[in-house]
């Protein structure tokens, strides 16, 4: 019998490959920033055809949100990866004629995603009631800070706000220091957005059986609160867990420690077995109510001293040999250059038609028979107007030209993040002209 790891590897490398799982699913999104857009990104990784509608000119405002203001070939890679594999249309939903186009697209869509503040999509005329009237089979999802109904529902939200209201923000940091840190890189958007994807796929699964569409309401705050074990802990003990620094209160000892070679290692002992494994090399580490608050501190001090005497590599060797959780604390560049991630294809290099060779994140999970992928990053504002109006709505060049003249649809303004790369030539781009698909 082949050894297990080789067997699994052969499934991924040589196993049967089938068509993209979400091929044929059409998604229309009126989204901005992260929460809404990430839904389409994930669906598109696995073959859904996602059309994103933006306002002409500057497009959605996350186009300008570049890390430390850095652009690449006049595009913003943050926005680019966030909106990879999508098609871009620019039509202002406030314009009645543009709204007609949105409706025509929505009629042909399986999924509609919006993430405005609750009620705004209705006011713009593209809410669930309006869209489901023209397409009763639609799976329509509204993403918001606090949900579509309830006293807080109209309040505006953002990642940082949702983390604050969810009482997640008061949990990260040091007890002794009066500062609160958010979970970075828009965790309050990304986690809820994956919850949305899960709900949408469930709705599609149900629709496959019954033919029925439906309305989905997901809030950032509730998605975060879902994982707050502090709530049952509080009803049970009457105490708040609050800030615990680097301790995981479910693990003892646990923390982030500095090694002899000045690196950081995370260790978290979840079980008795793991405790025994660690105790077999750490002198003085004795059990006895190891989960008690004061005891965790006491055990951590012993581990801290032990870690300080060993290099990171030595500690990882102990972890492998004895079987306890320990991992290095990586930084951005170490993550980016990690050969393991490249081998898993969670980071890949693509040759983008507009922006050249760039590294991007690959599919969010590895699937043996239907691997997902990132084919192209976001395009300039309105870049696929012609392609999609032809492909989805069967419009002629003349009809499209008329819409352009009437300013119903539009294109980018010259800001970085919105516009094509400087050397790009529209006449030589068949996709832009709507003659060829990506």
């Amino acid at each position, binding site marked *: 019998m082949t050894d297990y790891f080789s067997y699994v590897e052969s499934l*991924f490398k040589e196993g049967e490959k089938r068509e993209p799982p979400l091929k044929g699913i059409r998604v229309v999104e009126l989204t901005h920033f992260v929460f809404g857009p990430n839904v389409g990104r994930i669906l598109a990784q696995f073959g859904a055809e996602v059309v994103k509608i933006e306002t002409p000119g500057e497009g959605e405002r996350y186009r300008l949100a570049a890390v430390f203001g850095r652009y690449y070939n006049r595009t913003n890679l943050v926005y680019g990866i966030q909106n990879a594999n999508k098609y871009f249309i620019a039509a202002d939903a406030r314009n009645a004629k543009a709204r007609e186009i949105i409706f025509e697209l929505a009629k042909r869509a399986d999924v509609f995603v919006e993430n405005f503040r609750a009620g705004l999509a209705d006011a713009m005329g593209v809410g669930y009631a309006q869209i489901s009237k023209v397409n009763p089979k639609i799976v329509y999802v509204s993403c918001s800070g606090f949900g579509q109904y309830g006293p807080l529902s109209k309040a505006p939200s953002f990642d940082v706000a949702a983390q*604050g209201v969810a009482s997640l923000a008061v949990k990260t940091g040091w007890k002794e220091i009066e500062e609160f840190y958010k*979970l970075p890189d828009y965790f309050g958007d990304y986690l809820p957005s994956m919850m949305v994807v899960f709900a949408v796929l*469930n709705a599609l699964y149900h629709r496959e059986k019954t033919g029925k569409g439906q309305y989905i309401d997901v809030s950032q705050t509730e998605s975060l*609160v879902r994982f707050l074990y502090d709530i049952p802990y509080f009803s049970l003990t009457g105490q708040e867990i609050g800030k615990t620094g680097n301790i995981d209160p479910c693990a003892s000892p646990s923390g982030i420690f500095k090694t002899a070679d000045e690196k950081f290692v*995370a260790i978290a002992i979840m079980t008795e077995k793991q405790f025994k494994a660690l105790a077999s090399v750490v002198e003085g580490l004795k059990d006895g109510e190891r989960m008690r608050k004061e005891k965790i501190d006491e055990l951590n001090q012993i581990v801290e001293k032990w870690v300080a005497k060993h290099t990171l590599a030595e500690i990882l060797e102990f972890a492998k040999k004895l079987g306890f959780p320990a991992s290095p604390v990586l930084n951005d560049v*170490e993550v980016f250059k990690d050969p393991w991630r490249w081998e898993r294809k969670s980071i890949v290099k693509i040759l983008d038609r507009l922006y050249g060779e760039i590294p991007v994140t690959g599919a969010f*999970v590895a699937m043996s028979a239907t691997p997902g992928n990132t084919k192209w990053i976001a395009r300039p504002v309105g870049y696929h107007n012609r392609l999609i109006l032809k492909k989805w709505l069967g419009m002629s060049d003349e009809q499209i030209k008329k819409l352009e003249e009437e300013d119903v649809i539009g294109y980018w303004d010259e800001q970085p993040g919105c516009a094509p790369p400087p050397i790009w030539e529209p006449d030589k781009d068949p996709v832009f002209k709507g003659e060829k698909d990506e």
Partner: protein
Amino acid sequence: MSRDEILMKLFAEDNKPFALEDIKVAEIAGENFAGAIAGSLLAEFGAKVIRVDFDDEAKKISPYGAEVNGCGIPYLVESRNKELVKFDEKIKKEIMSCDVIIDGMKPGELDSLGIGYRQISERNPGVVYIAVSPYGHFTQKAREFANVPDSDLTAQAYNGYPSIIGNPYLTEKYSYPLKAGMWAAWAMAGINAAVGAMIALIERKKSGKGQFVDVATHDALAVIHAFPTIVGFLFDKPRTRYGTLDFILYPFGYYRVKDGYIALATPTDPDFRALLKIIKRWDLEPDWRYSLDRISDDPVKIKALDDELNKELQKYTVKELVAKARKKSKGKLIGRFLGAPVIVKLNKLQELLKDPHWKVRNSLISFNPDGKEILIPNTAVKMSETPPRIIKILGRELKKS
């Protein structure tokens, strides 16, 4: 009917069907709670989930060891709608016939017991096999670290997360990389796994075949938010901890005010200008350093502005600031598209629990073992046709409210 009433009626649970009532899942996840979270999501949406335990270790994992009837809190919360069973030969047969297997054990362990993908897929080619582990079930690294168990903290670390949390200006251990205050990596990995399962189940409707879905908790965050890839490529230099600031937007964080803390975000320039108006610091607006370019690439410059904001914000109460930020301008249509800062109160846990909003939305459910009420977060999703919901906890049916 008001919009709220219409929506509440639309989302009412009534006796609606579940989306996944035809799906049977075996969750064999041991102490890996990312696997248990994946099982929970499928269970909330109506899949019949059998949680198979080899021992009681997972039940012992709990904040400071807190227990309800001999069961830790994460296990309690993630027991939603599941049938809880002990592993034995009889259950093996049932596992073999499941639509979805969630394997959170050490890579290869189930294979050695004869219930890995290799054996199940032979008899049941439609099986969707979800493996959840630190480094996945293939690659050289996975093999090398197969014996290292998973934890949320180590997964956060390998995702590069703690490296960017915390304040580098503090001293000693306070300047260390800092963990996120919740199971951030396990929660994300759990949802990723559940989403992977759904994609495979949808595909199975077409092909009739299952497949192997591999989730690495040690990559679950980085593969989603993508920032290490972008920063690694553009700068070839890692981000450091940035205190209470953000790498893209400013301001975007938590601020102390007269009587508490607020979360404050001004994602665009109009929003920032609206903030200056609210706190009566319009004098800062013409300053070339702040008017347009608030890109946080220059910590010195941002710090100077941050000091100004900090000083000014402390003159107002939470209530005043929230009210000012939400005040509608007179021209209704235009008002909607003008800037406004996002300001909300930074809640402590008990403040969250007191807010009537969650009651209206039924965001928390109540479990009453031995007459003591324990609040548990409900499903986070509302759906009009197939509402997910919690029917039982720890195998006990909940009373209908």
